[in-house]
C-alpha cells in the first residue's frame, strides 16, 4: 500500500525541487473571450440562449411574470399528456410557483398527480415514483447564453433525480439569470460547490451517437427539455 505522503513525495522528487508551501495559480488580466460579446445587450444574450437551446432540440415557453407560470405549466403538462409530475420541494418563489401551478392543474385534472420531492422521504420509494413519472419540473440558478445551458443546484428538497429520471423535464429560468458564458458561473463555483453536493449543467436532452454515429435523443436521461423563460419583472 502506498501512503499519500509517499505518493506525493515521489512526484516532488521527480519534479526536482522542494514541495512549495504555497503556489499561486496564474491570474490573467485578460480572457480569451474578451471582445466576443461587446455589442450584446441582455436581450441579445437571451435570444442567443434560445437559439442555442433550440438547436439542441430543447423548447422554450415564454412567461410574462412568475405569477403567470401556471398557464405555461398547464400547456406543458397537457402537451406531454402528463399523469405523474415530480417537483422540487422548495420554498423559494420559483419553487413555490412550480408546485402551486402543478397542484392547481391536478385539481381540475383527475388523471394528473403531483409528487413533491421530499427531503425526509423514503429514498427507495421516492426513486421508484420518480422513475415512473412522465415529467419533472425544476428551476435553474443560471442560463448560459453561449451554449443554451441551464445550471441546477441540487440539495435536499431539490433532488438530482427530478431532472434525470422522467422523460420530460421542465425548467424555470428567469431572463435576468441568463449570463453570457460559462465563465460567469465558474467564477462562483468555489462557494456553490461547497454548499451543494451536486450541480448540473444541462444543455438539451440526453443524447448518444454510439450506433453508427446516428444521433439519438433521450438515451439514458430525459428526451425532452422545456425551459419556461420568465421575463424580467
Amino acid at each position: 500500500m502506498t501512503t499519500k505522503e509517499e505518493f506525493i513525495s515521489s512526484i516532488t522528487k521527480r519534479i526536482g525541487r522542494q514541495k512549495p508551501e504555497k503556489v499561486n495559480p496564474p491570474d490573467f488580466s485578460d480572457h480569451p473571450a474578451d471582445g466576443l460579446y461587446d455589442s450584446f445587450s441582455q436581450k441579445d444574450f437571451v435570444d442567443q440562449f434560445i437559439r442555442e437551446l433550440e438547436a439542441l432540440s430543447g423548447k422554450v415557453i415564454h412567461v410574462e411574470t412568475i405569477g403567470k407560470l401556471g398557464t405555461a405549466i398547464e400547456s406543458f403538462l397537457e402537451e406531454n399528456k402528463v399523469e405523474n409530475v415530480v417537483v422540487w420541494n422548495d420554498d423559494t418563489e420559483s419553487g413555490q410557483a412550480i408546485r402551486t401551478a402543478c397542484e392547481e392543474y391536478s385539481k381540475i385534472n383527475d388523471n394528473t398527480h403531483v409528487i413533491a420531492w421530499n427531503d425526509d422521504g423514503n429514498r427507495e420509494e421516492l426513486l421508484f415514483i420518480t422513475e415512473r413519472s412522465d415529467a419533472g419540473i425544476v428551476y435553474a440558478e443560471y442560463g448560459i447564453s453561449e451554449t443554451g445551458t441551464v445550471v441546477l443546484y441540487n440539495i435536499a428538497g431539490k433532488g438530482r433525480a427530478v431532472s434525470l429520471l422522467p422523460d420530460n423535464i421542465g425548467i424555470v429560468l428567469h431572463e435576468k439569470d441568463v449570463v453570457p458564458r460559462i465563465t460567469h458561473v465558474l467564477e462562483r463555483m468555489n462557494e456553490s460547490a461547497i454548499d451543494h453536493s451536486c450541480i448540473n449543467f444541462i444543455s438539451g436532452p440526453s443524447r448518444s451517437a454510439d450506433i453508427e454515429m446516428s444521433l439519438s435523443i433521450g438515451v439514458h436521461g430525459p428526451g425532452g427539455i422545456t425551459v419556461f423563460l420568465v421575463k424580467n419583472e
Partner: protein
Amino acid sequence: MKTSNLPFHERVDVAFKDDFLQESLKKAQEKFITGKANTYKPLGDPEVWRKRAEEVRRHTIDNLDYYLDMLATNIEKRGGKVYFAKTADEASRYVTDLAQSKEVKTVVKSKSMISEEIHLNHALEKLGVDVIETDLGEYIIQLAGETPSHIIVPAIHKNKKQIAELLSKVAGRELPDDPPGLYQFARKVLREKFLQADLGISGCNFAVAETGSLLLVTNEGNGRFTTTFPETHVVMMGMERIVPRWKDLDTLITLLPRAATGQKITTYLTAISGPRRDGDVDGPEELHFVIVDNGRLNAVGSKFQEILHCIRCGACLNICPVYRHIGGHAYGSVYSGPIGAVLTPVLRGFDEWAELPYASSLCGACTDACPVRIPLHEMLVDLRNDQILEKRSPTTERIAFKMFGKMTATPRFYATGLKAGKTVLNLFAGREGVESGPGKLKNWTKERTFPSPAPQSFRDWWKSGKKNNEKK
C-alpha cells in the same frame, strides 16, 4: 494496458481488411473535423484559447504534488475518502476489497479510461460481481468482449448489424438492426441496472483541487445515473486529471467538447462535491477517490512531461491520417492514435510498445489539433531517438543507416549510390512502376506501387542543362 496479443503488423492487416471500419473511420473523421472547425469559429482566434489552456495545464502539472495534496485534503473536508495507488494492482485491489466488504452484487460504470488501463472489470468479475458499462458505446464493446477503438466513440468499429446481434443475445430474441429501436432497448436494460446497482464507478474528467470536487463530462447522462443512485460511488482518477480552481476550468471546458465531437458543450456537466449531505435523498452515502499513478510518474520531470497535459478529447485521433487507416485496435493499447503512440511507451516502456512511435507519418497534424498544444509529433521523434540510443533498432537497420550516413556525406559515393539504386530498381520496375519490390521495399509495394526511377536523374538533367547553357 494491452488489448491484443497479435503483433503490430498483423493488427494493422486486420484493420486494412475491415471495409466497414475503413468507411466509418473516414466518416467519423470528416464529421468531427468539420464540427470542430464550426464550433471553434465563434470563439475568435483559437490560438489565444489554446495558449491559455496550455498555460493552465502547464502550471498545474508543474505543481502536481502541491495540487494533489490540496485536492486530497479538500475531498476529505467534503466527506469523501481518498486512496493513492501507485500500481494498477493496488488500484484494482482497493476497489475489489471495497466491493467485497459491501457485498456488492451489481456495479454500474460510466466511462473511465483508467479502469480500462488497469483491467478493473476483470478483477471485479472474478469476484462474481456483475459489472455493466453504461456508456452505450462501452456497453456494446463490453458485450462483444472487446476494447474501445476510439477514446470518444468506443464502438466506432461496430456496425448496426453486429450491434443488433449483441443486443439480441441480451434480449433473448431477435432485434431488428434499426438504431432507434436498439437505443430504446439499451435504455430499458441499462435503466434497470442503474436502479439495482449498489456500486457506481465513474472516471474523472477533472478534479478541482480548491473544493475537492469531481467534474464529469457526458452526453448520455450515464455519468449522472452512476453518481446518483448507487449507495457507493468510486471515482477512478489518473493523477494528472486535476485543475487548481473552478475558474481554471474555463478555457479547458470551452475547448474540450469542441475539440472532441464538435459540440459547444456536452449535454451534461456534473459537478460532485462529496457524498450526499444531511437532507439529500439521492446521491451516494460514500464517495471514494482512487488516484492512480500506474506509470505516469515516468513522465514527470522528463522531456515527456507535457503528455500529462492531455485532456482526453481525441482531436489527435480525429485528424491523424494513420489512425484513419488503421483504427484504434491496431495500436494494441487502450490509448490509440497519436496520444496513444506517445502515452503508451511513456507509461509502459518500449519492451512491448516499440512500434507505436513509428505509427505516424510525422505530419504534425496532431500537434496542430491539440487544444492544449502538446507537441505530439516532436515527442514521437524523441521516442524514436530514444530507441536508437538504447540500441533497440535491428542491427541491419543500424548498419544500413551508418552506410547511408557515410554515403550521403561524400558527393562521389552519393552519385554512385544513386546510380546503383536506380539500376537495381529498374530490374523490378514494370510499366506502372515497382509492383513487387525486393526486401524491405515489399512492405511498401504490398499496399501500393512504388514509382519507377525517372529516365533522367535530376543530377544528369542539371548537368545537361548547364552544358546547353554554356553552348549558348
